[in-house]
């Protein structure tokens, strides 16, 4: 099931350049609860980076903070060297940071095609049409169902739609929050095959996952988030071999 694709070596070569995304000591609160207490990480262009952590570790808070829909109370987010810590959600999408949210969150009462077109909200009409063609080429199933209401799709199809909708915004960095959530093992495999295919085509991807095994086995680089802090990092396969990770997340 696991197919390594050798970009681990490529990423080590790129270590000299500035990372595409750099998160430095990020802090965020939900009311009085401190959900992020110092998350730091870097994602380099062309990499697939996975962050794993248990339920409640702060994964979704981190993703929302990256997309600008969750307030940040300390630390910095740099995108291609620019400080975007205070940028609006819209500005980040336009800059190329696009998220597939946890639980997919497709617009259920709207058609599949309307969902896709909304993904291109920040893009020109021409880019919207081009994006639609690309999305249908990538996911022919969505083309067959384009007039159907998104809420009537199966879980796997909704995940496809959520990813395709995010691609409509022409991301430079694709964020995926818990892509395996609520999917059967077969659909989890399918979803991760799609993610690997995107990575192979050159998309830079940062994903957070509770399913540490599936995420770390395809990641160039991995992080472990615990209690709102990044506590461990290393190449994805190496983290899988790490005793602490094995014990805490893989139940070995």
């Amino acid at each position: 099931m696991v197919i390594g694709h050798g970009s681990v070596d490529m990423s080590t070569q790129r270590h000299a350049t500035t990372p595409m995304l750099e998160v430095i000591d990020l802090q965020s609160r939900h009311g009085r609860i401190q959900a992020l207490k110092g998350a730091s990480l870097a994602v380099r262009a062309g990499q697939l980076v996975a962050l794993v952590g248990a339920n409640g570790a702060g994964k979704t808070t981190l993703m929302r903070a990256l997309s600008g829909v969750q307030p940040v109370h300390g630390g910095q987010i740099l995108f291609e060297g620019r400080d975007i810590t205070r940028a609006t959600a819209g500005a980040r999408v336009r800059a190329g940071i696009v998220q597939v949210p946890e639980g997919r969150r497709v617009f259920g009462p709207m058609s599949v095609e309307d969902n896709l077109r909304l993904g291109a909200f920040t893009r020109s009409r021409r880019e919207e049409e081009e994006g639609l063609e690309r999305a249908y080429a990538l996911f022919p199933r969505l083309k067959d169902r384009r007039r159907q209401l998104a809420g009537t799709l199966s879980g796997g199809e909704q995940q496809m739609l959520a990813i395709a909708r995010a691609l409509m915004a022409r991301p430079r960095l694709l964020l995926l929050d818990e892509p395996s959530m609520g999917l059967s093992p077969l659909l989890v495999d399918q979803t991760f095959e799609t993610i690997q295919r995107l990575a192979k085509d050159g998309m830079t991807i940062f994903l957070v996952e509770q399913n540490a095994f599936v995420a770390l086995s395809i990641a160039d680089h991995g992080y472990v988030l615990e209690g709102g802090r990044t506590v461990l990092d290393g190449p994805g396969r190496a983290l899988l071999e790490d005793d602490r990770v094995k014990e805490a997340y893989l139940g070995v």
Partner: protein
Amino acid sequence: MLSEFLQFLFSGLTVGAIYGLIGLGFAVIYNASHVINFAQGEFVMIGGMATVFLMAAGLPMPLAVVLAIAGAALVGWLLARIGIETARGAGVVGLIIITIGASILLRGLAQVVWDRNFHPLPPISGDAPIHVFGATLLPQSLWIGAALIAIMAALRFFFDHTRTGKAMQAAAIDPLAAQLMGIDIRRLVRLSFVLSAALGALAGVLVAPITMTYANVGVMLGLKGFAAAIVGGLGNPLGAIAGGLVVGIAEAMTAGYLSSAWKDVVAFVIILFVLLFLPNGLFGRAEVHRA
């Protein structure tokens, strides 16, 4: 018998269409922000009163109407910009209370800037009644019906065929997901207030020839529009229009067959009934929402 019934029906449909237009304003703002805007009736008042005073200043009626609607739209924008956005942390209940405050403020301002008197507006095309099976129908009623149909068609087009309209739908379904597409919710909330204010002002211009207009005209009309929106299921634009017609007809029948003293009670009995027994409205669509 028939002529009497028809008479009540015509009058019910006429006021019902007005309630529907006002209810539509409630629905549009509710969809964008989950705020129930209790200053909706004041937009109706501004539409009518501004038209009266602009015409008194010598402007021709069409120009006065356009300026009055634009003025109400500006007030709507200011309410969203100053009242709603600066109080983002206040929560929905806090924001609703702010709209109640705005409604009182606008009524007070209208009495100071304009006056406390009742003013008629001329009907769009005279007031020679049309006779239908022994009942009479005012030309203004036909204008109101035509305006309602035109507005419905325009809104249908806006929500189904424009990018902004679809973004408004998406934001109503799932604001967080909409933001992740780069949709600016604050802009949509402002737009919803502008749109609702314009719709309310138009209702105010259309109803003034029948009921006259005055600084407090929005109190009752706003509540009836709210009843329409509740009956239609809050946040359902077509439901609000249908709800308006239901409330209007129920009111006219009660006034005709029982007593006009009971007229205003009907709307509130309907609100209570719907809230108690049909919380999604008569045409309630189940909430489609997935976390």
